[in-house]
């Protein structure tokens, strides 16, 4: 990764800024950014960000699991919920993660002090990442910082419970944080070549998240004529995120604009350019040493606009003298995700307001009754007297009415079957089948 070498790249700038610290205009440039890594996944990513060594950046690892926290390399490491978990982790229970964070509220609040922007990295799905992250985010907000979360959704194979918890956590985060960048782990499957070990795969995800955060921080800290501000980031991410992708590509030389278009169109995280077509908003940031031409911007923007027809655009530009002829383009896309748990939650989320956090929300309220699912022996029917039955039926409280989840029609990617050869003829329908469609297609025989 190219930014590993850029350890000292911002020295000059920060020097300049410290000189004028009293100047209130320049104070805005001297952003105090803190990165919190919550849970195991978050801690690993934070270690990587710490190793990149960006200036003006404080890295903090937060975990409930003492052994994992020891491995974390960060400016500060905080073990939360010592009483609740004894430093042994949450066992995948977000409720315990939440309690752990609430228990260590004072510690977290101290950490948040003085920060302008707090970036929180976490892997959603398990206890600490899902449960503690919304609490930490709310404390950060209370401390007066702007909060941006970068979270991952679990792999499909991790199971429905994990995914459900992740989506619940994501929902709470969406209400608290100024912006959430959510990257499903599954979207990396295209990035990983076959035969790569699982360990390498996880490393790759961590690297990617770290790289994404670093590029975001650079984007916020480097000055430019058309600066990308934190407000821009948040406005494009607010209320529509769940499926984001961030990609940074760079090129040098005469045809660097075209090279960048090419790299973007084949970038695996952008699903080879397909990601643009779903995107609701796209942020494009150009960073160069100041020699970028209007033609280059136009070429690249034309390319992206062609792919992302319906998206809301935000274009930024920043100057980094270290780049010397290199052009870096960072693209952040946000698309509405198909959240299978969204429908049933909408009514509830409307009720809850920000003030109620963190104490009001619960991860148990919508948990499926895992006991009855887990045991193969059905529980005996409860003994209910007639009076009780009548009282149950007479209750008009809408809360007692079992809400059926509103089923959403699934989307299938059908192979487009063209009838070009027979389009001017009447279709050959035989017993309800259109014989003009190839037999293999009708019988769903897959050719790979």
């Amino acid at each position: 990764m190219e930014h590993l070498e850029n350890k000292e790249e911002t020295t000059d700038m920060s020097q300049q800024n410290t000189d004028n610290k009293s100047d209130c205009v320049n104070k805005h440039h001297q952003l105090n950014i803190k990165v919190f890594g919550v849970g195991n996944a978050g801690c690993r990513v934070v270690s990587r960000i710490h190793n990149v060594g960006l200036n003006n950046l404080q890295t903090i690892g937060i975990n409930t699991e003492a052994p994992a926290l020891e491995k974390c390399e960060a400016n500060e490491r905080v073990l939360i919920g010592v009483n609740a978990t004894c430093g042994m982790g949450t066992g995948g229970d977000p409720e315990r993660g939440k309690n752990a964070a609430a228990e260590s509220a004072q510690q977290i609040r101290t950490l948040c002090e003085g920060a302008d922007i707090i970036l929180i990295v976490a892997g959603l799905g398990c206890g600490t990442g899902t449960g503690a992250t919304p609490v930490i985010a709310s404390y950060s907000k209370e401390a007066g910082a702007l909060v941006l979360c970068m979270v991952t959704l679990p792999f499909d194979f991790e199971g429905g419970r994990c995914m459900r918890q992740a989506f619940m956590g994501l929902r709470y985060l969406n209400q608290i944080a100024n912006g959430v960048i959510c990257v499903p782990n599954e979207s990396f499957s295209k990035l990983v070549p076959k035969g790569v070990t699982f360990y390498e795969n996880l490393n790759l995800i961590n690297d990617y998240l770290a790289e994404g955060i670093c590029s975001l921080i650079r984007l916020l800290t480097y000055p430019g004529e058309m600066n990308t501000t934190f407000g821009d980031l948040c406005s494009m991410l607010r209320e529509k995120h769940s499926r984001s992708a961030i990609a940074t590509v760079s090129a040098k030389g005469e045809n660097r604009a075209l090279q960048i278009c090419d790299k973007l169109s084949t970038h695996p995280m952008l699903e080879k350019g397909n990601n643009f077509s779903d995107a609701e908003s796209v942020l494009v940031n150009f960073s160069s040493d100041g020699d970028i031409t209007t033609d280059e911007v136009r070429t690249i923007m034309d390319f992206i606009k062609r792919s992302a027809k319906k998206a809301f655009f935000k274009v930024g530009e920043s100057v980094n003298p270290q780049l010397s002829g290199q052009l870096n383009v960072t693209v952040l896309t946000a698309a509405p995700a198909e959240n299978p748990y969204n429908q049933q939650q909408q009514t509830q989320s409307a009720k809850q307001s920000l003030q109620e956090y963190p104490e009001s929300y619960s991860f148990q309220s919508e948990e499926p009754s895992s006991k009855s699912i887990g045991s193969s022996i059905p529980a005996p029917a409860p003994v209910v007297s007639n009076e009780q039955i009548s009282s149950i039926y007479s209750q008009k409280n809408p809360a007692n009415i079992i809400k059926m989840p509103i089923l959403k029609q699934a989307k299938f990617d059908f192979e487009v079957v063209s009838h070009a050869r027979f389009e001017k003829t009447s279709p050959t329908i035989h017993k309800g089948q259109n014989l003009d469609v190839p037999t293999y297609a009708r019988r769903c025989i897959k050719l790979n």
Partner: protein
Amino acid sequence: MFNRESNIIVGLEIGTSKVCCIVAELDDKGVPTIIGIGQSRSNGVRKSEIIDQERAIEEVSIAINEAEQMSDVEVKNVYLAVTGSHIKAFTCNGFHPIHAASKVITQADVDEVIRNAKTVNIPPGDMIVHSIRQHFIVDQKEDVINPLDMLGTKLEVNILIVHGSQSRVQTPVRLLKNQLQIEVDNVVFSGLASSLALLNKEQKEIGTLVIDLGAGTTDYVVTVDGLVKHCGVIAVGGDHITNDLAQGLRLPIGQAEQLKIKFGSAIPPANIPDKFVVIENDLGLKAKTINLEHLYLIMALRIEETLELIRQDLQETGIIDSLRGGVVLCGGGARIPRILELTEHVFQLPAMIGNPVAIGGISSALKQPEFVTPIGLIKFASMFKRKSVSPRYSLTDYLKNIFGTFGK
């Protein structure tokens, strides 16, 4: 006996892959000899129906001109082969009580029962292409070939009605008349023509299925006891195989057609020595690599399905049990390697590729499965002419002779 004009019979087939015109001359005994042939590649036809009238007319005129030049006659009247998904067949029954005190069945009774049988209810907008008489039934005595002078109280007859959409049958007829000033003497269902050209007397007797695997449609005709018992059209043909390949392998139609001809097989080979084939583009550069396994799979599925649809239809009508003569294949699809194996497997009957029989003047060039239908048209026309000029024959005899001869 005949002047030259009336001696000439012309069969025209406007098919999906080619337009073919055959000119034949009848000798004194009414035996046809082929004297001219013309053909052209067809582009205006899909599934055996004209979709592009201008191109179709152009191609027909090329074929007719070629045949005219070869035979040195002017084509004025033709016998036209028709097929398409709209062609359907069903059997209907006619009934006539014998009123005469003697209970002797006369010619008038036979005419009457046939007329009764032909008053059928076909879908609106349809026309009868053929009505083929089956055997008579006299007082529950079945399989009566000629009821004349027999005694009985009740005469019945079954008729196989082949009908098709009037507008779709008339489209080529009208085009030929308006654009090329060519009269159509008669339209003939092309499956019927094919079976007429292919089957010998014995095959007709013991029960044989003829399948014409054309480019646009697959026609099939069952002949049992010397009579056409059942026929049908499935609007799936070689074009569909090409289209399937083009879609499945993502190739242009032209390349898919070439691949089909070069590698095609009705049954996938057990082991494929060289699984991947490189397709070259116009410049001879490597354009695409395709997997032959997929090609074989796509083809085999389509062909097997088509044959299976025919088998199902014959099973439903129950006629499949009377097929002792096996299956005879013709049309371009009969050239697909291992198609006979597949046919034998699907129908559990012996299969063979048909050769046009009993027409003089057929060069070896015409002894190909693709020319069976136009040759069958000539055969149909020769029988029609031979009988129709003789005043002895009535309508009954005409029917009997057209389709009876074909049986006896």
